[in-house]
Every structure is written in structure tokens, then in C-alpha cells.
């Protein structure tokens, strides 16, 4: 059963990777032969996936009972026995001092209102989750390669750029979703209006592109450009819904990869390219970022059901209200097929949101999604463990666990 689950998982992640063999990913392209054959092969697992899904979901449930705590415990004990606990955020932050000041310098312009708007989210109150991963990964790769362990200036720039691209996408997402609060404050669109907010997003993106160009490394530019494309494509995926139940889950995971994981995966890859010439290391960095990123978003989707709005700094059940069926809903739908109709009409009838929420909480959708997130985290840990041991590498291992246990 476990192997069946893993086969499905692997097909799935492979499909995500293989469908977009971006420039500068020799590992992925090479593994599936030429580009055209890769295109032909991707169809296969896709249909296998569809077929195997129905039979797989019940399995997940059973395995999850069986395995629920063991894997986490074992990877913990392996790396953390006898070692002092290091907070990854503390460790990473050493290289990020002045992060927000530096970002604000990138956004320097004479138009005061536009400046104020684009600086609005760089107030130092965010988690800086992405920059932390990026600098930790930079040090882990530098040490692995035997370089000086210090973060290079160009690698630190990637941390800034990742946070800027992320913020630019938040500004646009909030307009698209007509959101009114984020990180405990009003959104840019609510304060300044949509017309100006869209330009603030564009402005942050252009400043990020400038910073990216100044690094002066064409491969790195290609890697991070992929992120911008994925973000837009992810948003398009969110626009449409799949009628076929089985396609829905693949659709959801692909969207999750594009909207969240691609940024983390590709910025990890970018710092590894800057720190180490070995393509094997680049792939490790990419896979770590991708798996942690997907886990991060899966937990985010869980928190939308389990956390209260005060903790999150944004309203909960937000996804349902937007008509989006996330992991917990899709799992719950396996137990309560009557949810299908609601998913199809995007929870648009009065009472749909509340009813769907009740169904999810009655089902084990939350546990299943959490379990899936754990699987992604284990994959991330397995990948990063291939690097030479260092405090930063271990911090990355620990970070992947904090992703699972976070409550906001």
C-alpha cells in the first residue's frame, strides 16, 4: 500500500517537474531524454494518476494511521540527537540584517505615494520565510562546495528578490480576490484603491527585475523568470475548475506548486547555482524548495479551516469564500460525495461555505492534508540530507518541520 501511495506521489511530482522543463534544468531534461519524448511520456503517468487516485485515497487514510508519527520522529532523532537546538529563523536572520531597509532602497523613487504603497508590506512584520530559506540554502551549498561559508552578496540579493516577487504577487492577488486584510492590516487595494494598487504590484516586480539583472548572471535570471511565469499560470489554474473529480487533485497540486512552491524552489536553485557549480546540488536545492513549498501551502490550506482569523492576520475560510476547493475539501469530498455539487458551483449558494466547512471538519480532510504535507516534508529532508552536514543544513531540516507545526 505504501508503495502504491508513493508511486502516485512520485508520478505526480514528476509530472509537475516534467511538464515545465525550464531553461537551465539539465537534470530534469536529461533524465527524460529529449524534450519531445518528455512531452509524450508525461501523458502516461497523467492517466495512471487518474486511474490510481480513487484507489489511493482510502490507502492514504490507513497509512496515515499507521505511520502517523514515526517518520517525523526518526528523521528528528537522526539529525538532532546530541545537537543543540538552533532556531532556523535566528540562524538565517544573521545574514538578513537590514533586509527590509535594503528592499526599501531598491524601491527608491521620487513619487512619494507610489513609494509608500510599495513599501507598505516591507514593514518588518512578515515572517520572511522565503528569505530565511534562501540564505540558509546559500550557506548550506557554499559549505557543501567547500567555499567560504559566508553568504555572497549576489546570494543575499536573491533573498531580497524572492521576498519582493512574493510581495508583488500578494498585492495583485489581493486585488483579484478583493481581499481587505493581510498580516493584520488593511490591504493596499482597500487603502489606495485598485487602480493604484495594481501599479504598486507592477512597480515592485520591476524593481525586483532590476535587482535581478544587476546580479549579472543569465542562468539566475532564467531561473527566477520561471517563477514569474509560474505565478501567473497558477493564478490561471485557480480561475478554472476541473469537472473530473480525479483531475481535480492533480490540478490542485499543480496550482499549489506554481503559486507557492515554484518561488521557493527556484530561489533555492538560484543561490545554489551562485554558490556551487555542481548540477546535482542545484537539483537538491530545487527539490528541497519545491517539497517544502508544497508542504507549506498544504498546511496553509489546513490552517484556513483550523485557525481563527486573529491568529492568521487574515480572515479564515477565505478559500471557500473565493470558491476554491483546497486539499481538505478535496479529501473530505471522498467521504461526502454530496460536496461535489458544491465544489462545482464554487460554493456560490447561500450556506454553501458553512456547510462545506462543517463537512471538512467532520471528515478527516484536515488530517489527510496534514499527512500529505508530512510526506512532502520527508522528501525535502531526504533531499537536503544529501548535502554535507552543516548548522545551516540542519536548520533547513528543522525548518521543514516547523512548516508542519506552525499555527499561523
Amino acid at each position, binding site marked *: 500500500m505504501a508503495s502504491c501511495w508513493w508511486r502516485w506521489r512520485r508520478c505526480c511530482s514528476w509530472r509537475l517537474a516534467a511538464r515545465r522543463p525550464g531553461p537551465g534544468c539539465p537534470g530534469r531534461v536529461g533524465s527524460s531524454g529529449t524534450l519531445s519524448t518528455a512531452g509524450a511520456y508525461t*501523458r502516461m503517468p497523467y492517466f495512471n494518476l487518474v486511474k490510481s487516485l480513487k484507489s489511493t485515497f482510502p490507502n492514504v487514510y490507513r497509512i496515515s494511521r499507521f505511520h502517523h508519527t514515526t517518520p517525523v520522529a526518526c528523521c528528528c532523532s537522526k539529525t538532532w540527537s546530541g545537537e543543540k537546538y538552533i532556531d532556523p529563523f535566528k540562524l538565517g536572520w544573521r545574514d538578513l540584517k537590514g533586509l527590509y531597509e535594503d528592499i526599501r532602497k531598491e524601491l527608491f523613487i521620487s513619487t512619494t505615494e507610489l513609494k509608500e504603497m510599495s513599501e507598505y508590506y516591507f514593514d518588518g512584520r512578515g515572517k520572511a520565510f522565503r528569505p530565511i530559506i534562501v540564505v540558509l540554502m546559500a550557506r548550506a551549498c557554499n559549505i557543501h562546495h567547500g567555499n567560504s561559508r559566508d553568504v555572497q552578496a549576489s546570494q543575499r540579493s536573491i533573498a531580497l528578490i524572492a521576498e519582493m516577487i512574493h510581495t508583488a504577487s500578494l498585492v495583485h492577488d489581493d*486585488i483579484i480576490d478583493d481581499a481587505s486584510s493581510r498580516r493584520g492590516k488593511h490591504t493596499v487595494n482597500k487603502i489606495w484603491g485598485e487602480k493604484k494598487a495594481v*501599479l504598486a504590484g507592477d512597480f515592485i516586480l520591476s524593481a525586483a*527585475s532590476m535587482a535581478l539583472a544587476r546580479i549579472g548572471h543569465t542562468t539566475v535570471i532564467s531561473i527566477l523568470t520561471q517563477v514569474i511565469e509560474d505565478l501567473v499560470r497558477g*493564478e490561471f489554474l485557480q480561475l478554472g475548475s476541473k469537472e473530473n473529480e480525479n483531475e481535480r487533485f492533480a490540478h490542485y497540486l499543480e496550482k499549489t506548486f506554481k503559486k507557492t512552491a515554484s518561488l521557493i524552489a527556484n530561489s533555492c536553485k538560484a543561490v545554489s547555482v551562485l554558490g556551487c557549480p555542481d548540477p546535482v546540488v542545484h537539483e537538491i536545492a530545487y527539490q528541497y524548495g519545491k517539497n517544502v513549498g508544497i508542504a507549506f501551502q498544504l498546511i496553509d490550506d489546513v490552517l484556513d479551516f483550523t485557525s481563527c482569523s486573529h491568529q492568521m492576520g487574515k480572515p479564515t475560510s477565505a478559500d471557500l469564500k473565493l470558491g476554491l476547493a483546497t486539499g481538505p475539501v478535496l479529501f473530505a469530498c471522498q467521504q461526502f460525495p454530496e460536496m461535489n455539487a458544491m465544489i462545482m458551483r464554487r460554493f456560490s449558494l447561500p450556506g454553501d461555505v458553512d456547510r462545506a466547512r462543517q463537512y471538512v471538519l467532520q471528515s478527516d480532510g484536515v488530517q489527510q492534508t496534514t499527512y500529505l504535507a508530512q510526506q512532502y516534508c520527508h522528501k525535502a529532508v531526504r533531499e537536503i540530507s544529501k548535502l554535507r552536514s552543516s548548522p545551516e543544513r540542519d536548520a533547513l531540516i528543522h525548518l521543514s518541520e516547523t512548516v508542519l507545526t506552525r499555527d499561523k
Partner: protein
Amino acid sequence: MSLQQLLLRSSRYLGASSSSRRLWWSPLLDTTSKVGSWRGQSSRSPAHWNQVVSEAEKIVGYPTSFMSLRCLLSDELSNIAMHVRKLVGTRHPLLTTARGLVLDSRNNLQLRGLVVLLISKAAGPSSVDASCQNYDMVSGIYSCQRSLAEITELIHTALLVHRGIVNLNELQSSDGPLKDMQFGNKIAILSGDFLLANACHGLALLQNTKVVELLASALMDLVQGVFHENSTSTKENYITDDIGISTWKEQTFLSHGALLAKSCQAAMELAKHDAEVQDMAFQYGKHMAMSHKINSDLQPFVKEKTSDSMAFNLNSAPVVLHQEFLGRESWIKQIGEAQEKGRLDYAKLRETIKAGKGVTSAIDLCRYHGNKALVALESFPPSEARSALENIVFAVTRFS
């Protein structure tokens, strides 16, 4: 799968047809006497804008369809098209933009790309780089320069789409249901972002960090310029900000000149021309764009038959100049006199402005920038592409 094959085939087909089109045009190009005679003629009879543009398009090899096929035939764009159709019947500005993209494409929308191609051809291959890369030249233009022209259009169009977002809390009941406008915003943001993402993708493929930096800074300028434009466009009582012509020039450079100037410079960088040639290309792009903008600002004041009540932009060059000659107080008084029951009588205000010196000095300013553009062109060797660039300037600086 079959769709993909179809796309692949059609792109191949277009690739092939582009070269055959070039052959089809080439007899025209060989008879340079035609271009020459047309040029000679242009000084006498007014060369119409459309004629100038269509002649220029022949010079660059194949008619310019800048939105790349990749972009036009993608799932995302057909998705957008489907959603835009839902907006028909609402009053979301995205519809106007979309309509403009289809109908107006001959006029202004592809001008930037065309100029980038012409200046690439006018500059030719650099002496440093004469040996290599020549194989991917079509009609004297490198394929990377063609991509750049396309990227320039993508960025311009993306901002055009983002300009059309509406503020939801300022909606009038005449605008239709809130839900429609919300949906329109959503699609406008997504399609603009999609175009920008395509531009980024194209830029990354050029493998030249300096070009990426130039275009990124052009985007930064453009966003700032559009931001100024948006924040000055709607004011109560029609009282405009008190900006002098020098501020106006700065802002217009950001919103209309920077993208073309920096794209022209980037086209030179791609052919490895030195800093001096790059600067001349920048100057041409900048001054041509400025005189083009002033020309279109002047249209409501110089056209023979303008429908009288037609509104014009109160932040356009002639109005700003008029205001500067007049002084702030008299201007506010004139605006007040032209208002009736809170509505501005544009016909009346137009006559007032025409009586002042604003229009003539705007024409002078247009010609000043036109001359600067022509001077910049002098550093390029004479060629049909250079003539076409000159003709574009002649067309925008002619008022009769």
C-alpha cells in the same frame, strides 16, 4: 496533444512563410529608387501616417505581428478571451482596451516595435561582431532584436491593460453591477500579468543582463509615468495640478518616452554597438516618442472638424503650455467660465485655448523634439531604414 501539434505546425508554417514573405517584398526593397522617390515626394505632399507606417513595415521584412504566436495561441490567452466575452455589455474599460488591440493595431500599438526594428536595421551589424551571428539575420535584423521588439510591445500592452483597472469604491450606478466590474478587474490584472510574464520570459532568453536591466528600468519608469497620469487625470471641478512644462516633460518621458528610448538602446546593445551608438538610438527613441505624444495631444486643437463637444485631456501639452503663459489664477478663472452646472463645456474651453499661445508653442515643442530625433539619426549611415525613421518624424511634426 493534437492541439499542440497543430500549434507546432502552424508556428513552423509561419516561420517558413516569414522568409517567403521577405522574398515577396524583396523586389520592392531592391528598387530603392521607389523609397527614394517616395521620400522626395514626401517633402511636398503630406505623407499620411498610415502610409509612413506601412512603408516602414515593408522595410523590416515582414509585417509586424508582435504578440508572439506562443503568447497568442496559449491556453491562458484563450482563457482570457473567453472571460472577456463575459464582460460584453458591462462598462469595464478592459473591453475598450481589448477592442483597441484588435482595431487600432495598425496605428499606435505596434509603433514601438516597428521603431525598434527600423533602428536595428539602420544601425546594421557592428564592426566588432561582423563575423558571427549573421546567420540569424533576416532583412538585416537579428532575431534577438526581433524578440526585443516583441517584448517592447508586450510591456507596453501590459501596462495599457493595467491602466484600465477601475476603483471599486468609486463606481457609479451607471457602471453596472459591482460583480461585473470586480470580474473585469480580475481579468485585467491577470491578462496584464500574463503579458508581463511573457515579456520576462522573452528577456531571459536574450541572455544579456544589460538588456534585462535596461528593459526592467524602462518598466519601472513606465509604471511611475502611468501612476502620475492616473493620479492627475480625475480631479474635482476640472482643476488640474499646477505643473509647469518641465514637470510635464519629465512625466511624459516616463509614461511615453522611456520604454521606446531604452528599447532602442537595448537593440544596439544586442548588436554589440558601442556606447555612442547606443546613446544616439536612445535619443532618437526618446525625442521621437515625445514629439509623437505632443502631436496626439495637439489633435483636438488642430483638426479641421472636431466634434465640438469632444473632451480633451486637460493635462495635454497645449493646455499645460497655455496655463503656463496665462498664470495659474487666470487659468482657474477660465476653467470656471467654461463650466456650466458643474459640467465643463469643452468646445468653449477649446476656443479659449486656441486663442492663446499654448497651441503654437506646443507645435514648436513638437518640432523641437522632432529635430532632436533627426539629429540623432544623422550618426547612422544613410539607408532606407533610416529614411523610414525620418519619415516617421516628418509625419508627426507636420501640421497643416
